[in-house]
């Protein structure tokens, strides 16, 4: 009980600190996620057209996800990026790629071949096929990929403070250094809330973007 009380006190006494760390955390998630979406979705779409691309793209993304997250951070330092926000963002970006690549590919390739054949036979161009048939039908699958990538990234971002990137992780580290459980909790609770919020939001988005014709 006293722990919760102390935590509450920390929240009310240092709203600025909490807010700053949360905002940092948001950046740490938003920047690599945006980059991952912007890179992975178009690249994978291209790979559905230029088949040989898929192997290398998926292989790379897979490797990045397979490397243990701490090791990935260590590699950033080892390759000379040092510590701070930049190596953390890069590591998070690499880590976020795989679920997006996988779901984009599966989503687009999974569109009924009959539907694609009919569309082509009716004279849609390759781009129209992508935008007006494959994308609408694959979108909810792609969003599901982004969702799992996002949840993983939020978790991983907490570790990024280990290489000096700030965020809620650094609040937790600080608390542990001072053997103050209330400060640890003050970092942990917003991190958890963020994760659930992201999960909930993305779930809603996924449902909203499932075409009505696929929901009946």
């Amino acid at each position: 009980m006293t722990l919760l009380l102390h935590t509450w006190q920390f929240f009310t006494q240092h709203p600025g600190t909490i807010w700053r760390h949360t905002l940092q955390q948001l950046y740490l998630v938003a920047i690599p996620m945006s980059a991952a979406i912007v890179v992975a979705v178009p690249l994978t779409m291209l790979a559905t057209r230029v088949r040989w691309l898929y192997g290398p793209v998926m292989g790379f993304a897979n490797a990045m996800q397979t490397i243990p997250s701490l090791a990935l951070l260590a590699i950033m330092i080892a390759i000379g990026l040092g510590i701070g926000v930049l190596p953390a963002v890069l590591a998070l970006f690499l880590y976020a790629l795989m679920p997006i690549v996988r779901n984009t590919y599966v989503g687009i390739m999974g569109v009924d071949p009959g539907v694609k054949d009919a569309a082509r036979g009716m004279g849609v161009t390759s781009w129209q096929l992508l935008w007006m048939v494959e994308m609408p039908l694959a979108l909810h699958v792609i969003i599901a990929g982004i969702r799992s990538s996002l949840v993983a990234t939020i978790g991983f971002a907490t570790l990024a403070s280990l290489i000096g990137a700030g965020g809620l992780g650094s609040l937790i580290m600080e608390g542990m250094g001072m053997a103050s459980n209330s400060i640890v909790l003050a970092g942990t609770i917003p991190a958890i809330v963020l994760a659930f919020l992201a999960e909930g939001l993305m779930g809603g988005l996924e449902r909203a973007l499932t075409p009505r014709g696929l929901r009946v």
Partner: protein
Amino acid sequence: MTNGEAILEFRGVTKSFGGRAPAVRGFTLSVPRGQLVVLIGPSGCGKTTTLRMVNRLIEPTAGAIWIEGRDCKTYNPVELRRRLGYVIQRIGLMPHLTIADNISFVLRFMGQPPAARRARAAELLEMVGLAPEEYLDRFPAELSGGQQQRIGVLRALAHDPDIILMDEPFGALDPLMREQLQEEFKRLLRTVSKTIVFVTHDMDEALLMADVIVLMKDGQIVQVAPPEDMLRNPADEFVASFIGRHRVLRQASEVSVADVMIASPAMTGAANGLARSLELMRRRRVNSLLVHDQEGRFEGVVRQADLQQHIEDGDQSPVGSLADRAVEALSPSDSGLTAMHRLLEHQRADSLPVLDENHRIVGLVTRGTLVGLLGDALRVASGVQDLNVADPTLPAPASGEMAP
């Protein structure tokens, strides 16, 4: 076929997919405006490949296809496809679009305003008796397979193309639904005059729909003829066997007993013992045997019940003594109709032997045979599905063992 006003012409079209024998070889055909041409043949004979070369989803390796006096290759493929209609077995409606948007899919790419597209969709729905207000805003997944393919056909008509390509459009539907759509489609075609290339592997469907049937085998055309001509004058053995039962069973009156009889009925020699004859019946799974003498001449019919009775009574006489001679017989040249009449007259007999002029047994006609004959005749005449009439008491027509 005349070269009259050909809207579509195949000129020595060949397609190879590398290495193996070409999928389509030297395909030459001209399709007059307004005709429904059916491409038919066993699976893998190149029907789909031929069809998809018309709208350039597949490019020929050699030869050319001309549409309205112009080589296909001179059209932009996308433009070309928008001049054609395309219906496939997998239907391929866009699941995320409403029925209205599905039907008018091509119109959207042709830049028609939404209101006009919707109006066209409604008009087409009415043509097949579907209430527009009920269907326009629904999604494909809410419709049955039959309804979905109706929409698939309407979609191909939306932009009023002159030529429609159909690849086994009704192939995935259950028999009842298929028949219904075939009829409906024929009716629809009377109101919209179109040139149609229709692929099927179902001879019933071909006979029902075709103005001209193109029978293919191993990528080549075997015969091109209107249904009636193909039935009466098949070009070769392959054609005959592909349409075989239809040719033979066109009409019961045209069919001879020789065409429909069981050529190797279950028989037993008159000198054979009773038990041996009974065993023969069991093996052939029949309940009567034709009894013949040493020269193969008809001696009579012996029935299972009689045999069993006499065996139980300890009768040691040969089977010939039990043969019922008071049975009417048919000749191979009698018509199927005659056979039917005789069987109906003789309520007691469920089969009649077929004898040549020397009274030798050449076959057997059962009620089952004739029901099959009637069924086929009806089916050919009206497109009704296979009734699957099977008679378990029929002797197996294959293995023709003749007991000495």
